[in-house]
């Protein structure tokens, strides 16, 4: 989230990295914290959290599994994807890179992306920040030559610099035997792995069973939009995780942690399993807008306990409107997220003679049994409305004229809701057709129960 003040991260009283605003004030990496604060008095300084960095890296790795099953981690800051098997599916290297870049941006990460025929070469390009996509092994050596020796991340960098070697090209020009003797076999192996002359096995990253990710807000927030903005990053990460597992989920839990109050839990329940971040975000938006927060939010955690298999939808050939035709679960979820689960329902028949129990609520879309009933009105009153009686004739905006009946309904003596009624179809003075009944009791009161419409 962009912050108004310059921001920097420090480690051991030195600036590690700073944002553009801080850089504009003259801050740079390696500067002592005291000097940085003198240059930028409003500087928001945070200590480096390596644990959080590792978490983030693991999260990115899980998200990136949607592009390839072969993902490896190179701590502290590198994720390696073996994409040669996925090129055809995604439509080429450029497409995959664009997709990764877009997803990383949506999760709020800045990243250097590079591709090369060998893992080590790709990691070197990425570490130098060079946007370099090399698919052809023949071009690799030329590109590698230009790299500085800092990519080796070796303690011997200074020693090499002192003999006048400043780039990979200089290193390759030196005799291999001497190089290995003086600086160790490791250096030579690294070079060979980068050039593809030596195998470079990596431990495969294993996708966790459950999804759990946390995002710390840069500043405490109460606004639904700000919370949604941060939650979206988690949801994009979730989408990648689910895609990698070829799965979807029906239940997400967002927990918003506060300074002192217990965390606010927001559960999103779905009718059908889904993995699209945009849809999750839509549901989260409605819920966040409705939730009353006890305090400002400091961090948001997203948890998904249960996932279920979900096939990858085929790429859309037609427009989205057509694709959404059968997508009624989405609509119901959207309505429920704002109006509440109970406010949106379907209906079903129930084998009970009592009219108020013959029609029950059901989940929309669920298959239902068919039953035959006598003539029934389209509208039923939630509770029967007592009618006045005038000269033994029930009245509702004037006297009612009974057209048909009685249909005797007597049932329910066994469950405490005993019903004994005679139902009639009646015509009101204004020509409305009503469904009225008379209690089969000595008082024999009349009630309006339905409207034929």
């Amino acid at each position, binding site marked *: 989230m962009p912050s108004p003040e310059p921001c920097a991260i420090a480690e051991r009283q030195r600036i590690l990295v700073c944002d553009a605003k801080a850089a504009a004030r003259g801050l740079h990496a390696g500067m002592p914290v005291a000097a940085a604060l003198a240059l930028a008095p409003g500087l928001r300084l945070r200590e480096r959290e390596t644990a959080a960095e590792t978490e983030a890296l693991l999260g990115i790795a899980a998200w990136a599994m949607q592009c390839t099953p072969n993902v490896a981690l190179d701590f502290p800051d590198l994720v390696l994807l073996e994409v040669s098997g996925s090129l055809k599916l995604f439509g080429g290297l450029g497409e995959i890179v664009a997709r990764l870049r877009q997803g990383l941006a949506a999760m709020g990460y800045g990243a250097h992306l590079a591709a090369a025929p060998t893992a080590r070469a790709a990691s070197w390009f990425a570490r130098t920040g060079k946007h370099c996509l090399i698919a052809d092994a023949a071009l690799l050596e030329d590109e590698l030559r230009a790299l500085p020796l800092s990519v080796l991340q070796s303690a011997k960098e200074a020693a090499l610099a002192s003999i006048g070697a400043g780039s990979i090209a200089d290193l390759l020009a030196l005799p291999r035997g001497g190089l290995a003797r003086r600086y160790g076999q490791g250096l030579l192996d690294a070079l060979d792995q980068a050039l593809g002359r030596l195998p470079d096995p990596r431990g495969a990253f294993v996708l966790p069973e459950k999804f759990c990710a946390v995002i710390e807000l840069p500043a405490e927030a109460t606004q639904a939009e700000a919370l949604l903005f941060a939650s979206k990053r988690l949801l994009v990460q979730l989408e990648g995780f689910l895609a990698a597992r070829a799965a979807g989920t029906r239940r997400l839990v967002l927990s918003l942690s506060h300074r002192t109050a217990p965390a606010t839990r927001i559960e999103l329940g779905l009718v059908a399993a889904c993995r699209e971040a945009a849809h999750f975000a839509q549901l989260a938006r409605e819920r966040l807008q409705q939730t009353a927060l006890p305090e400002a939010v400091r961090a948001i955690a997203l948890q998904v306990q249960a996932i279920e298999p979900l096939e990858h939808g085929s790429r859309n050939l037609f427009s989205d409107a057509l694709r959404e035709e059968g997508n009624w679960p989405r609509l119901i979820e959207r309505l429920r997220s704002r109006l509440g689960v109970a406010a949106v329902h379907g209906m079903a028949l129930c084998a009970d003679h009592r009219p108020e129990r013959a029609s029950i609520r059901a989940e929309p879309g669920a298959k239902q049994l068919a039953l035959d009933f006598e003539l029934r009105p389209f509208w039923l009153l939630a509770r029967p409305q007592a009618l006045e009686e005038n000269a033994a004739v029930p009245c509702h905006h004037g006297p009612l*004229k009974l057209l048909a009946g009685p249909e005797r309904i007597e049932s329910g003596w066994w469950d405490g809701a005993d019903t004994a009624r005679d139902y009639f179809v009646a015509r009101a003075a204004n020509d409305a057709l009503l469904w009225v009944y008379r209690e089969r009791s000595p008082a024999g009161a009349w009630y309006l129960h339905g409207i034929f419409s």
Partner: protein
Amino acid sequence: MPSLAAGLDSHPGIWRGSQLARTGSPGIASGFAALDAELPGGGWPCGALSEILPQHEGIGELRILGPALAQLATQGKFIAWIAPPYLPYAPALAAAGIALERIVIVKTVKDSDSLWAAEQALGSAACGGVLAWPRDIGYTQLRRLQLAAENGRCLAVLFRPTQAAREPTPAVLRIALATSAGGLALSILKRRGAPLSRPILLPALSAPHAAAASSPHLRFDAHVVDSTASAAAAAGSISARLALA
């Protein structure tokens, strides 16, 4: 020249003021031939808002939609009922041939929620029909619903009080319902095409046997029960009978 006039009449690009507008998409047959004949597209319009203004509840405002809804539900399309004034009653809907599993009922507390839900349902393309009972709705909001309906291409019906007839509407169809000599009079106040001066009479609609006729299973023989005889009727001398055909 009669041949020229005949040629002009059959030309698809020429529309005469006296004719009904030709709509791009055919409507959903209402199930009532007299009504279909007067509706552009030969039925309830799809992808546009329709308004039904019943004089009061219980005169047949749902029954005139019954066959269309049954047809949509049979095609597997969902029908959303947004903020209905009473509980839609499952046995009657089932008897009208409307598949219950395709019905979604949305209850709302606030007017703004009803309009929001209607807009979502109309625009989502997931519904085949949207019926809404807005309590208080202005032109701007109607316009929004009309735009949403154009996106969704579904049957969109708003039920409004008769007083709304005085206000302008972006809806393409507006029908006022009134009882007339025991029947139902449909006055088409607005449609695509020339206005209709006389109301369409659907005489059978308000009588109970007509309600039974809309369902294939039920036949209903009704004899008018004299109100003075109602005590006797209650005592068991049944002068009307319900029969399962």
